[in-house]
């Protein structure tokens, strides 16, 4: 990696804010600045892969040769009460969600 590549700014402050919005992460202004520096350094390192010629190479999303594993759609006993226990806000047997509109 060249020094120039390391210093290159791959991602702007505005882009970091947009990413945080996409990823649904509320961050402070101070964190945005810190993250931007870290992200740029890490992305600079990732660009090492540009050196590799991948023309006509197909991607490996998965190392196995398994395709479309299907099962019968049969109900099995579940523990709804135990699941409800974990909901941070609820009313009776309902989970409370924030308002949509």
């Amino acid at each position, binding site marked *: 990696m060249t020094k120039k590549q390391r210093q290159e700014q791959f*991602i702007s402050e505005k882009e*970091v804010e947009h*990413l*945080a*919005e*996409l*990823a*649904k*992460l*509320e*961050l402070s202004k101070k964190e945005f600045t810190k*993250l931007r520096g*870290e*992200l740029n*350094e*890490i*992305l600079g*390192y*990732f*660009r*090492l*892969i*540009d*050196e*590799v010629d*991948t023309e006509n*190479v*197909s*991607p*490996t*999303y*998965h*190392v*196995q040769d*398994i395709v479309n*594993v299907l*099962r019968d759609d049969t109900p099995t006993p579940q*523990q709804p009460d*135990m*699941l409800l*226990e*974990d*909901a*941070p*806000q609820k009313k009776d047997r309902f*989970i409370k*969600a*924030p*308002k*949509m*509109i």
Partner: protein
Amino acid sequence: MAKQRILELPVWEAADKIRGQEITSEEYVAATLKRIREVEPDVHAYITLIEEPALTQAQAIDKKIRRGGDLGRLAGLPVAIKDNICVRGFTTTCASKMLENFVTPYDATVVERILGEDGVIIGKTNLDEFAMGTSTEYSYFGPTKNPWDTSKVPGGSSGGSAAAVSALEAAFALGSDTGGSVRSPASFCCIVGLKPTYGAVSRYGLVSYANSLEQIGPFARDVRSCALLTSVIAGYDARDSTSSDKFPADLVLKRSLPKLTIGVPREFFEEGVQEGVSKTVRDAISRLEKAGVKLSFEEISLPMLKYALPAYYIIAMSEASSNLARYDGIRYGYRVPDRTLDWGTVFSKDRGVGFGAEVRRRIMLGTYALSAGYFDQYYLKAQKIRTLLRREFDGAFKRFDLLLAPSMPILPFGLGEKMEDPLQLYMCDIETVPANLTGIPSLSVPCGVSEGLPVGMQLMAPPFREDLLFQAGRLVEDLLPVDRSAGEFTHA
């Protein structure tokens, strides 16, 4: 037998003694709990202890033995479980504020299998938050310390599991390995750890971080015990759609081996590898050669290894950003107390507060790599490099039975030393990520000491040839024994 002494028996031998009624499961579990009380203030391997239920289970197993019932293969020995694997009725925190209070309603398949073979679940162990890290310092509950030298990190992300086994706080443990998270702490804590072949062990009940890369893997203090736990947890499971039926049902470790040829890729000893580490592993190789055992070594080159680390991180972070999208604080997890806020704001606040800095970093980078305009350049390109890497490994395994590398490029480092430099910490994974990208099994075995700190040797095999790893691993531990009494908390 003195109470603490039984903890120093090789675990497979302790299993035989429990089976032969020389010692009881209750004695062993009680001695382990006593040990935990003594060393935990210094080591901090556990997040949750399961004391009373463990003793009750041990008593029931002893009763079964006395009645002449069939004793399972784990014979009432205590197993520690990484806290990203579900044990019914206890919290699965993933060492995150997000899941601090999440009580798990079901058992992971590996936990069912352990209980089915009379293993006793003794506690849930510390990790880097959501298994993202190489030092177990990114835990919401504070770091685990290396029992060999408590001023050092234990490796990670399964540092709690490795430390528990190394410090005699458990007979065995389970971790998970996405990019080295079993092999790294096994190496740093001077024990044995396996990342099984992708698909060999069910991931049902493992909290997902990067599904296409990770496997649950066992820790033990010796190779034979590691093989025993592997044989218990491996095998087909319909509840994991990536589960395979190719793992041999009976993992037989033959007494007489065929001669094994081992390839030593030079890239694993080059850039970023400390001299003390490469020298110790190379010395180990020459000592094995001189011992005249049935192993032969040849240096080779796998040029694509140079690109494995960036390709791995791009893929892992992309999968992480997708997997961790599920944490919205609605059905479970951290939820901000303010009830007046709208949906989008609540999500962002829950996640901004619930996730730690490293998790947020990886979500952001993964989101970036998957976003429109950058997808081809990062994610797709990384997956193509994965194809090229696999081709190189396939080629190498046509010539060699095994490949060999150091487990970690550096010696166990000081607590806090790399906390503020994420990229430096990522670089610690250069030796381990190739096995995850290619899906092959890989074993870390202690092979020596450098500057008074343990060094691990990593052996890699073709898919579903864990038997070769264990056979070669036993030769390494027989011929190059490491004196555990040199460590701070690694002996009774």
